[in-house]
Structures are given as C-alpha cells and as structure tokens.
C-alpha cells in the first residue's frame, strides 16, 4: 500500500481558451448572453468615445484649467502651489522607494499623468511654458525621490516625519503666507478654490478627525463616567445632524458668537465642521473594532502586569484599527465626496468651481455634461486610489492574521 501515499502533481491550470469556454460559453444560453453583453458593451463604449471626441465641447475645461485646480489663487503667486506640489510628488517618490510596491501604482500613475499634461496639445494662453515645464519636473522628481528612497540612505522614520512637516507647512505657511511678507504675501482663503480646496478639506478632515475619533471611541468605553458620557453625547449629537447643518452652524453661528476681530477663517470653520462630523463616525467605526478584540487579549496583557495605557496602545488599538481599515477608508471616501457640500456655505471647491465656470460665458451654460463628467472623473480617480490604498494597507498589515 505504498502507492497511496505517493504525492501526485496538481492538475494543470486551464489554458486561456479553456478558461474562456468555461466562463463565457459553457452552454448555448451563456454563449448567447456573452454575445449579447459584448455587443451592448461595444456599442456603449463606441458611442461614448465618439461623443467624447467629436460631439462634446470641452472648452469650459480647456479655457480655464487653472480655475478647476486652484480657483482664484493669484496667478503671480501660483509658484507656491507649484512648489507645494513638487514637495508632495518628491515625497511620494521617496515613499515609493522606501515602502516599495504599496505606493508604486500611485507614483507611476501620477508621473505619467503629469508627463502627459505637460505635453498635452492645448491651444490656450493659460497653460504657459513655465506651467508645462513645472508639470514635466514632477515625474523627474518622483523618479529622483524613488532612487533616493531605494538607496536606503533615508530611514522610513525620516520620510514619515517629512510627510508630517510638509502636510503642516503647505496649508499653514506656504499657501496662506503672512501679512507684510514680501516673499510670501498673504493670500486670503476667499480666493482659494477648486481641487486645492477639495484636497485641503478632505486630507485635513481625514488626518485631524482620525485621532479624535479614536479618542472618542476609547472614551465611550472608558470607566470614567464624565469621559464616557461626554463621548456618547458628542457622538450621538453629531451623528444625529446632517453635515450640511453642521457646516451651516460652523460658518454662520460660530461667526455670530465670536467678535469680528477674532473671526476664524471660513475655510477653517468649514474644516472644523468636517472634522466634528467625521470624528463622530470614525469613533463608531473604531468602537466596532474595539469590541471585536477578544477579552482574553486584555486579560493576558493585564496578567503580564502591563499598565492600562500600554494595554490600549500596544495590544488593543493595533488589532482594532487593522480590523476597521475597510470601513474607515469607506467612510473617508464618503467624506472626500461630501466635502462638495461646502459649496453651500460659499466656498468654491472643485464642484463649486465647476458651477462658477458654467456661468463664466453664456455659451458654457449648455455644457454641464462635460464639466460634471470632468469633475466626476477627478473624484473617481482619487476615490479609487483611496480604496486601492486601503487594500494594500490591509495586505501589508495582515501578516500573521489568525
């Protein structure tokens, strides 16, 4: 009976032809459905492409591409936005080098996009040669950053700190500037707009609300009654109110209560509203993760003599946060798209800018389809990359999962 224990080779994987036959033409009904579906898809794609190339009039976008990107940010100060972008692309390249494959698709996509934009044939005076050169520098910087990151001369901790510094420096120093400064004259946020505002509100909202959300989730499970009741009160009140209402409250009511001279900037007010809103939802997501951690984990940590703060930060949170990556990223994608609601309190984000451009010239009014499709495409690219990033993060952190 020695034959029985002999290992046999696994069955050969199907060839492409076998795979197609099995999945698309397994019987005559499926074959019919395949042909029918392929026909529909073919004609839909062809008509969409014909429309996009022949019928559609993209002049609102080609006429004022900078409006979509930065709004009314003074054109003579545009180099500040450019410099900020270069810092981010360089860091992205460096992160690609340090953390390898997790960031590769982002970096490569951005490099190709910037390179294409630089040489895109557009007959418009707004896209000047310096802007094209700037676009072309981006892929070069991404590549240089990649080489530097891969050379291991820069430890990953330094890259993380650089990200923090750059993400604070750009919205707090470089873009707003200072009154009376000659190098960085003040640019009020009332002229900021477009993608710049959308990214500022969403990246700021996500990064600031996340730690608050975690603290609220921990607070809700705290044994200290005051902390616990405050957390529950905050979460339940904020979750019970629509985002539009919160934005209104922050932009109108907060302004009424504070004296005119200590008025908070309206973009900051909107950001505060977004942070409030997002923190409450993050808190509930994280609480779900905290509840999924078996009590044995805390018992084992207690039995080892660990203090509560260490049990939470070393044992419970790392496991809980990994569990809630999918829901939290989903929530952040929603938040990213929800930032368009700031249009209602008079801030010209990407969508608001699109509406403004439609009113720019009388012949643009009928071109809503083109403008909204363009905006939708930008939102889709960012949202898709966020969900891709979440999958990569899950994979990276999923090592040794039970």
């Amino acid at each position, binding site marked *: 009976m020695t034959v029985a224990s002999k290992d046999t080779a696994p069955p050969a994987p199907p060839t492409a032809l076998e795979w197609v036959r099995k999945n698309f033409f397994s019987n005559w009904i499926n074959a019919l459905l395949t042909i029918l579906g392929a026909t529909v898809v073919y004609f839909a794609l062809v008509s969409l492409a014909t429309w996009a190339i022949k019928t559609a009039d993209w002049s609102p976008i080609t006429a004022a591409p900078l409006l979509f990107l930065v709004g009314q940010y003074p054109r003579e100060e545009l180099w500040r936005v450019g410099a900020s972008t270069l810092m981010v692309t360089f860091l992205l390249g460096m992160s690609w080098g340090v953390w390898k494959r997790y960031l590769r698709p982002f970096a490569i996509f951005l490099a190709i996009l910037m390179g294409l934009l630089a040489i895109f044939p557009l007959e418009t005076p707004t896209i000047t040669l310096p802007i094209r050169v700037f676009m072309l520098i981006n892929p070069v910087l991404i590549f240089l950053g990649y080489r530097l990151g891969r050379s291991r001369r820069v430890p990953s901790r330094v890259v993380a700190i650089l990200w923090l510094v750059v993400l604070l420096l750009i919205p707090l120093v470089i873009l707003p500037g200072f009154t009376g400064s000659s190098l960085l004259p003040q640019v009020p946020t009332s002229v900021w707009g477009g993608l710049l505002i959308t990214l500022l509100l969403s990246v700021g909202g996500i990064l600031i609300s996340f730690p608050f959300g975690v603290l609220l989730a921990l607070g809700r499970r705290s044994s200290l009654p005051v902390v616990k009741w405050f957390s529950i009160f905050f979460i339940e009140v904020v979750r019970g109110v629509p985002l539009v209402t919160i934005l209104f409250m922050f932009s109108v009511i907060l302004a009424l209560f504070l004296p005119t001279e200590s008025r908070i900037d309206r973009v900051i007010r909107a950001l505060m509203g977004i942070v409030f809103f997002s923190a409450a939802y993050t808190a509930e997501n994280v609480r779900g993760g905290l509840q999924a951690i078996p009590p044995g984990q805390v018992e084992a940590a207690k*039995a080892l003599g*660990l203090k509560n703060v260490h049990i939470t930060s070393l044992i419970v949170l790392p496991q809980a946060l990994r569990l809630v990556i999918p829901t939290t990223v989903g929530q952040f994608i929603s938040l990213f798209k929800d930032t368009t609601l700031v249009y209602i309190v008079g801030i010209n984000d990407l969508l608001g800018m699109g509406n403004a451009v439609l009113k720019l010239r009388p012949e643009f009014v009928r071109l809503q389809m083109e403008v909204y499709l363009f905006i939708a495409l930008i939102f889709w690219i960012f949202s898709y990359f966020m969900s891709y990033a979440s999958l990569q993060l899950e994979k990276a952190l999923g090592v040794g999962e039970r």
Partner: protein
Amino acid sequence: MSQQTNTDQQIIIARDVHKWFDSFQALKGVSMEVKHGEVVVIFGPSGSGKSTFIRTLNRLEEHQRGTIIIDGIELSHDVRNIERVRREIGMVFQQFNLFPHLTVMQNITLAPIWVRKWSKEKAEEIATQLLERVGIPEQAQKFPGQLSGGQQQRVAIARALAMQPKIMLFDEPTSALDPEMIKEVLDVMVGLAKSGMTMLVVTHEMSFARAVAHRMYFFDAGTIVETGTPDQIFKNPQEARTKLFLSQILEH
C-alpha cells in the same frame, strides 16, 4: 506588615475568599496556603469555581470578601499593589491569548521591555533562552497564527516566564489542545515544576498531578471539598463527591 512573618513560608495566602457574579456565588469561602516551590493541582467539575479562584489571585477577578496575600502584598483596590502582584505572577490561559499582531519574539519581550524596563537586547536574550527551554527556538520570528496549538501554548508559557515570576498560574492549559499536542505542553510544565517553580494548575490531566503535584484540591460548587497529596486523593479519597468525580474522569 504583620503578614511579613508568614511570607517566608507561604507565598500565597487566601483566607475565606468569596466571589459573586451578580447573584450567582462562584466562591463560597475558599482558603488555601501555598508554600514556595509547591506545585498545587486544582480539579473539579466545570462551574465549580476553580478557574475563578486562581483568577482572583492576580486580580483578573475581584474577590468581594476575604483576604488574599501574595508574597506579602495584600490584594485590595490599590492599583499599584495589583500591578506589583501581577509582575510576580505568570499566567497561562486555556485559549493561549497570544497577541496575534506580534511575532513570537515580540510576544515574549513585550512585558519585560514595558513593565520591567529591560533593554531590548536583554529581553531578547532571555526570550531566546526561554524559547530553547520550551523547545521551539526556531519559531521566534513567526506570528502566533502560523504555529500549532501546542507550540502556541509553549510560547504562552515562555511569555509568562519572561517576566521571571515567582508564581505560575495555569488555567486548564491543555483543554484546548489536540491530544497529540497535550504531551509537549505537559513536558514543559513538568520540567518547570521540577525546577522549583511555585505552580497552581487547574487541570484534569491526572498524569501530571501524579508526576509532580505536592498537593491536590478538589473544588465543587464554589468550595474546597477535599485536599491531600496525590497519593491520598487517588488511593484513598474521603469524600463521596471526590470519588464519583475521579471515577468519571479516570474511566477513559
């Protein structure tokens, strides 16, 4: 400080310990004294309070009446005393409770680094020695999920030993294991017992009790029904309940 005189001999003193879960009384006046280096086996039917009792010793469960003194420190609401006691007591659980997001090495060195404030190098050196002692030095960089149950439980023992405790508590350490893995864990425990460690073991592995236990306690319905040396318990149990229980678990 009046207890100080006792602690030369008795490292664990439990007097008249009571514990309620809501209205259910899990412990009804349990008293036990354990000397340095003694190996105690606690057995009894499920729900008899044996696990609850050893969990009161490191305050995973709070006792509501009675006194518990560990190595001269009385357990009360004083958090610092609780932390001091927990540093001296290692515990091994039925479900292992390893930290799944940390490697075996990180599992073992975590508490020495954060509680004992040892350097990473010192903690890893001791962890390596312990992994050799429990027979799995080659698994240091793996995650718990990549190990078999028996290996996980041996890591859990190494993790508890890394704090260099004076007492080890075992809460049914082999109950969640496949039969072929029970022996590898029991072997480690026997070795530990022979090295002079003070051990309280909740288990139904009577072979382990016969081999190394100094005393055995039979728990039922929240009280100690009978106590004695393994010889006395196996050959000449006094109580009818002990006889019945022993006949049930020794049948197969």
